[in-house]
């Protein structure tokens, strides 16, 4: 069949609108370990590179989304063993670790950069490594029978991963707002305004926290599926990018901010649709309305 590009585009659009299309999105290759390693490596590279202000904000946005997916996966891994109402707490714990780790990393990196030059940009990884140790130790304390004795399988690893993911997320998102994670830039007023990038730490904190805690909390149940949960994590990463893009438009200008907003919007639309389709396809049924089943009937 020969079709002109315009017709082809139209057809594509039509195809997208058709509800019968079956959406398959598999995280089979990215199992828990591979996803973690991939996100850690890519996130760390982008975090180191985001010291330089010319790095586009949407690259940092991609890094932040990846890291948030990893964090959501770790929350799922940690909270799967019947924590129930503890899921949001685990997510907030992750960003709490992350805030401490990010500030440590920024301080160490900036200080080394101040005295020894460019090698200091690797200092941000010191914060990640530090939080990995802190997270592991807190996992051991929570699991060990001598202390709290929660006996959750894999808690040590989960805590370490959460702390690292939180640190990378906070670092990347604060460098989206300030242009760099250099502490002098974060603590000094934004050009032309009477406010520092540190004023937006509250929104950075809560946004990355929700990226990690909401997916598993909202999908929790007997038939929860990892792929579906992670689709939602990516979708929330898109919302985060839109809001941080608005902040970056103010602090760094439209050149940095607008591509991030566009990226966030595209990611949000695509993955929201994919998630909803997955839910509707995998539910017991999706009646328009209906009565409820009575007991025994």
């Amino acid at each position, binding site marked *: 069949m020969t079709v002109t590009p315009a017709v082809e585009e139209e057809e594509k659009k039509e195809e997208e609108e058709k509800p019968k299309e079956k959406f398959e999105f598999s995280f089979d290759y990215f199992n828990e370990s591979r996803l973690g390693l991939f996100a850690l490596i890519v996130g760390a590279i982008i975090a180191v590179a985001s010291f330089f202000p010319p790095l586009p904000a949407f690259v940092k946005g991609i890094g932040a989304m990846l890291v948030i997916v990893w964090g959501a996966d770790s929350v799922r891994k940690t909270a799967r063993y019947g924590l*129930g*109402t503890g*899921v*949001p707490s685990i*997510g*907030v714990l992750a960003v709490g670790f992350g805030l401490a780790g990010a500030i440590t990393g920024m301080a160490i990196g900036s200080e080394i950069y101040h005295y020894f030059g460019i090698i200091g940009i690797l200092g941000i990884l010191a914060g990640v490594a530090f939080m990995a140790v802190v997270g592991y130790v807190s996992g051991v304390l929570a699991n060990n029978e001598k202390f709290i004795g929660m006996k959750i399988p894999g808690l040590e690893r989960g805590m370490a991963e959460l702390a690292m993911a939180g640190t990378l997320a906070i670092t990347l998102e604060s460098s989206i707002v300030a242009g760099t994670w250099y502490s002098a830039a974060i603590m000094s007023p934004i050009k032309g*305004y*009477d*406010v520092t990038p540190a*004023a*937006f*730490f*509250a*929104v950075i*904190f*809560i*946004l990355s*926290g*929700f990226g990690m*805690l*909401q997916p598993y*909390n*909202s*999908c*929790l*149940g*007997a*038939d*929860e*599926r990892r792929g*579906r949960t992670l689709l*939602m994590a990516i*979708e*929330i990463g898109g*919302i985060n990018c839109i*809001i941080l893009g*608005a*902040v970056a438009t*103010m602090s760094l200008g439209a050149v940095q901010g607008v591509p991030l907003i566009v990226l966030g919007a595209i990611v949000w639309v695509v993955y*929201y649709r994919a*998630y*909803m389709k*997955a*839910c*509707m396809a*995998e*539910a*017991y*049924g*999706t*009646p*328009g*309305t*209906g*009565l*409820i*089943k009575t*007991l025994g009937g």
Partner: protein
Amino acid sequence: MPVISLFAWLLVIVFLAFIACMFEDLESDVGSQSNPNSQVQLAPEMGYIHRYYNKAISGEGLSYALACTIAGTIALLLLLKFEPTYGPRAAILAIPVGAAVGSISHMIRASVCYPGRESAHKRFEQPIYLDVFYGHLVPIATHNFIAVICITGIAYIQSNLTVLSGVSGASNPFPLPLLCLIWGITVGAIGSSTGDIHYGTEREFQDRPFGEGRRVVYHGQICRYGDCGIRTSKDIVAFCAKYGGPATGLTFGLIVLFENWRTVIGMMLGGLAGAAWNPGIAAVSGIGLGIAVAIVLIVLNTWLVRWARKKFGPFVGE
């Protein structure tokens, strides 16, 4: 007259807090968030298929922290942009737009919860009712908008109190998003702790002896039928708006009122930052007043509990 205007702004904040927490509680009832949600989640697992909306974003405190912080951030961005040109009038635009963005974000997050949780109930044969799904989104967004706009307004008043009241040093030094985060967590926490009790005991579990907790045997056995037909979460709002919501708003309003009232009275007794300003007297009289208020409240509550027990019969097992 700076003290009078400080009091006036205090009362404005209390009023906004009352409205905010009332609507916060009603909004959480639209989607059965927080504590009652655990039973809504449990019901299909026990064989009770229902038509409640399962809005499990997170606890109320956190989800309100999120909505309010986004609102505060967007409001701050607009204020920074427009305040140099239009002065304080920029707030007329900034606060509603910020709150709108916050509540839309909240609605989007609420919309992913119901399909997520109910599709995870596949093996218990709980379907996703599309009318329940679509019908609850707008009430969630609108109730949330009222709560978030009030909280953003409170944070704005707090961070500009020096200009508004004329008392030097009255402004809060925190940036707007951080104030919104703190107020959001607070309003969610009060709404969760006070309002959920009314929703849970009066609406989800109606057939229960006075004062008894829910036995484990009956977990998940929620009231699924309404006065007419099958109950959805929207029906609960109309019921809770009569008592649970206002009571929750009153709780939060009174907390804000007593807390700030004692501080302002203490500041007045200490000379209110004038020539005779004495921080020691201000602190001591403020704390003393706070303790007096706490004692009065404890006595009143004890009396209320005794009266209720006498009137509505003994607890089971008493």
